[in-house]
C-alpha cells in the first residue's frame, strides 16, 4: 500500500471513529433533552450522563485528529477547504464550542439547568448538519476557483437536493446510532424501563435512516455521475453488506435480544457504507481539484507521520481499552453502583 493510500485510510478510519462516538454523543444530547421535556428524564438521563461524562472529551479528539491529520497528509486541503469553508466551518466550531462547554457547565456545575440541556440537545442535531457540508462540497460543484481565489457558492449548496439529502441522512443516522447504543447500554445496566424507551427510539429512527441513504444515492446520481457509477459499479457489494447489517440489527432490536450484537451490526452497517462511499470517492479528495496522488505531502513528512501514527496507536489502544473497561464494560459502574 503506498503512503497516500495508507494516509487517507488512516484518516478515514478516524473519521469513521468520530462518526460513531460523536453520533452517540449528539443523539444522547437530543434524547436527554427530549426526556426532560416529556418528563422521562428520571428514567434515562442518569444513564446517559454516566456514559458521557468520562468520554465526551475523547470524542472531541477524534475530530481534532482528523482535521490535523488531513492538513498534515494533504496540505492543499488546507488551502481549498480552508478558504471555502470559512463561514460553515466557523458555524460548526461555534456549535461545537457551545455544546462542549455547556455539557461541562450542566454536568459538573449547575445540574438540571434546562437552558444548558436545550443548547446541548439542539446543537447535537445542528453539528452533524454543518459538518456534513464538508463532505458535500467534496463532490464538487460548490466552489468556484480562479487563480488566486476560492469562492464558496452558498446558494448552490442551499438549493442542491444532494446537500439536503446528506443533511437528512446525517441527522437521522445520528439518532439511530445513538439510540441503538443506548439501548444496549441500558440493557447492560439491567434498566428495563430505560431500555424500553430507548428501544422505541431505535425502532422509530431505523426506517428514516435507510430512506435517507437511498435519497443520497438518487441525488448523487444527479450531482456527480462519475462517483455514482463507481459506487454502484465497483463497490455495490459494500453497500449490499451495509444493508444486510442494517436489516439484521433492526431485527434483533425488534425481537428484544442481543442488543450488543445489534449495536455491533449497526457499527458494521455504517462501516461498510462509509468506506464504500470513501473508496468510490477516490482518487478525488475534493472533486475535481484535489486528488490523492497529487496532493500528498512530501515523502519524508508522510513517512514521519506514519511512524508517529503507529507509535501513537501503541499508546492509545491500551489507554482506550482501559477507558472502555472502566466505564463501558464494568457492569457495576453502568448500574450506578460506583461513583
Amino acid at each position, binding site marked *: 500500500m503506498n503512503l497516500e493510500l495508507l494516509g487517507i485510510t488512516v484518516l478515514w478510519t478516524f473519521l469513521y471513529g468520530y462518526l460513531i462516538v460523536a453520533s452517540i454523543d449528539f443523539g444522547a444530547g437530543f434524547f436527554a433533552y427530549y426526556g426532560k421535556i416529556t418528563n422521562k428524564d428520571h428514567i434515562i438521563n442518569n444513564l446517559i450522563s454516566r456514559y458521557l461524562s468520562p468520554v465526551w472529551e475523547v470524542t472531541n479528539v477524534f475530530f481534532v485528529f482528523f482535521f490535523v491529520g488531513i492538513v498534515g497528509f494533504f496540505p492543499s486541503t488546507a*488551502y481549498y477547504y480552508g478558504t471555502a469553508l470559512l463561514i460553515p466551518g466557523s458555524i460548526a466550531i461555534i456549535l461545537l464550542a457551545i455544546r462542549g462547554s455547556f455539557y461541562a457547565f450542566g454536568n459538573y456545575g449547575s445540574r438540571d439547568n434546562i437552558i444548558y440541556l436545550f443548547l446541548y440537545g439542539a446543537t447535537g442535531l445542528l453539528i452533524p448538519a454543518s459538518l456534513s457540508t464538508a463532505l458535500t462540497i467534496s463532490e464538487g460543484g460548490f466552489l468556484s476557483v480562479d487563480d488566486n481565489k476560492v469562492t464558496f457558492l452558498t446558494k448552490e449548496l442551499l438549493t442542491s437536493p444532494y446537500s439536503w439529502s446528506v443533511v437528512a441522512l446525517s441527522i437521522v443516522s445520528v439518532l439511530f446510532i445513538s439510540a441503538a447504543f443506548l439501548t444496549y447500554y441500558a440493557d447492560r445496566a439491567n434498566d428495563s424501563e430505560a431500555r424500553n424507551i430507548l428501544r422505541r427510539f431505535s425502532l422509530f429512527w431505523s426506517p428514516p435512516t435507510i430512506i435517507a441513504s437511498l435519497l443520497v444515492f438518487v441525488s448523487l446520481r444527479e450531482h456527480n455521475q462519475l462517483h455514482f457509477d463507481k459506487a454502484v459499479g465497483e463497490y455495490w457489494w459494500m453497500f449490499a453488506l451495509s444493508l444486510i447489517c442494517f436489516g439484521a440489527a433492526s431485527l434483533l432490536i425488534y425481537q428484544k435480544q442481543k442488543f450488543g450484537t445489534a449495536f455491533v451490526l449497526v457499527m458494521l452497517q455504517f462501516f461498510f457504507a462509509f468506506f464504500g462511499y470513501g473508496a468510490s470517492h477516490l482518487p478525488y479528495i475534493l472533486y475535481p481539484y484535489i486528488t490523492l496522488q497529487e496532493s500528498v505531502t512530501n515523502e519524508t513528512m508522510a513517512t514521519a507521520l506514519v511512524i508517529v501514527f503507529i507509535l501513537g496507536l501503541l499508546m492509545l489502544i491500551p489507554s482506550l481499552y482501559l477507558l472502555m473497561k472502566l466505564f463501558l464494560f464494568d457492569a457495576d459502574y453502568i448500574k450506578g453502583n*460506583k461513583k
Partner: protein
Amino acid sequence: MELDSVMLSRMLTSMTLIFHIIFATIGVGVPIMISIAEFIGIKRNDSYYLLLARRWARGFTITVAVGVVTGTAIGLQLSLLWPSFMEVAGQVIALPLFMETFAFFFEAIFLGIYLYTWDRFKNQMTHWLLTIPVMIGSSASALFITTVNAFMNTPQGFDLENGKAVNIDPIAAMFNPATPSKVFHVLTSSYMTSAAILAAIAAFAILRGKRGTYERKALRLTMICTFIFAGLTAVAGDVSAKFLAEVQPEKLAAAEWHFETESNADLILFGTLDENNEVKNEIRLPGFLSFLAGSTFDTEVIGLNEFPEDERPPLWVHYMFDLMVSIGFFVFAVAGIYLIMDRIKRFNELNKPLLWMIFAGGPLSMLAIEFGWIFAEVGRQPWILRGYMKVAEAATTGDGVGLTFILFALLYLVLGVICAVVLIKMFKNAPAEAELEQRFPRK
C-alpha cells in the same frame, strides 16, 4: 487601520488565542498542582490535602471544557483564516501538530478516568498514578504546539521554491533554534500562573474570614509552588532574552527601544516615545541590556536601525515586555516575603496587605501570560514565517471574516461569563469544612 481580510483575520486569531490561553495555561499547570496535593495527602494521610486535590479537580473540569472547545476552534481557524500558511505548515510542521493531538488524546483519556475513579481503587496510590499521564499529556501538548510557534519565529528544515516547500526535514523544523527557550518559558510560566491563581483563591478565602486549617494549608502549598515556579520562570525568561539577542535581535530591540547597535546598552523600564523615537520619562539601568543579552556589560546588542523599516515590529511591544517582567518579579517577591514571614514566628504571614498582594498575584500572572504572548507574537511582525512569508500573504481571501469575528466575540463573551458564574456557584454553596466532614468523617 483598514479592516480588510488580513486585519480581521489577525483580530479574530488574536481574540481566540487570548481567550484560549487563559484556559490552556490552567490546563497545563493545574494538573501538576492537583498531583502534588494528592500525593502529599496520601503520603501524610492528611485529608485536607486530599480534599484540596478533589476540589481543584472539580473546578478544573469546567476550565478544561472551555480549553478543549477553544483549542478546537483555534485548530480549525488556522486553516480557515490562514490557508496559505497552513499549506506550507502542513508540509513542514505537520509532525508536531499531529503529535500534539496524540498528547491531547492521551490526556483526555486519563483525565476522564481520573475524575471518575476517586474511590474505585483499594490502594489510593493507584488513583494518584493516573495524574502522571494527565501531566505528561498536558505538558507534552504544550511542548509540541510551542515547537510550531517556535518554527514560525525561526523557520528551518525546508527551502521555499515558488511558494512550495522543498527539501523538508521534519525533525529540524520541529527542533528549531527557538524551541528550547520557548518551551522552557511556556511550561514554567504556566506552572507559576496556575499556582499563583490557586494561591489567590486561598488568600481570598482567608480574607473573607475563612481562616481554617484547610485554607492555611492550601495557601502554604500554593505559595511554595508559586515561589519555585516563579524562580524557574525568571531563569527561563533570561534564557529567552539571550536567545532573542542572538537569533531574533529585532524582537529584543523593539522590546527595549534599542535603536543603535552598541555595547554597554541600557535597559529601559517603561517611559514614552516622542515622534522622533526619542525615549522620555524612562527608568534607565545603564548597561543592563547588554548584561541581559550576554551576561557581560560589554556585550554588543544589535539595534533596530539595522533592519529595514518594513521589517520592524511595532514599538508598543515594549510595554508588553515590561509589564510581563514586572509582574513576574512582583509575584516572585510576594511569594518570597510570605515564605519568610511564614518561617519566622514573630511575623503574621496572614496580614491583610500581604494577602491582598497574593490575591492580586493570580490575575496579574494571567495578565503577564497574555502580555508575554502578545509581545512574542506582535514582536515577529510583519512575518508569519520569519524571513519567508509575511502575514498579509497568508490570510484568507474569503469573504465574511468580519461576520465570523462578531460571532466568535459573542461566543467568548458568553462562555467567559457563564464559566465564571458556574465556577463561583460550584464552590460558594459547598464550603470546604462541610465537605471535609462529609467525605472524611473524623473517627
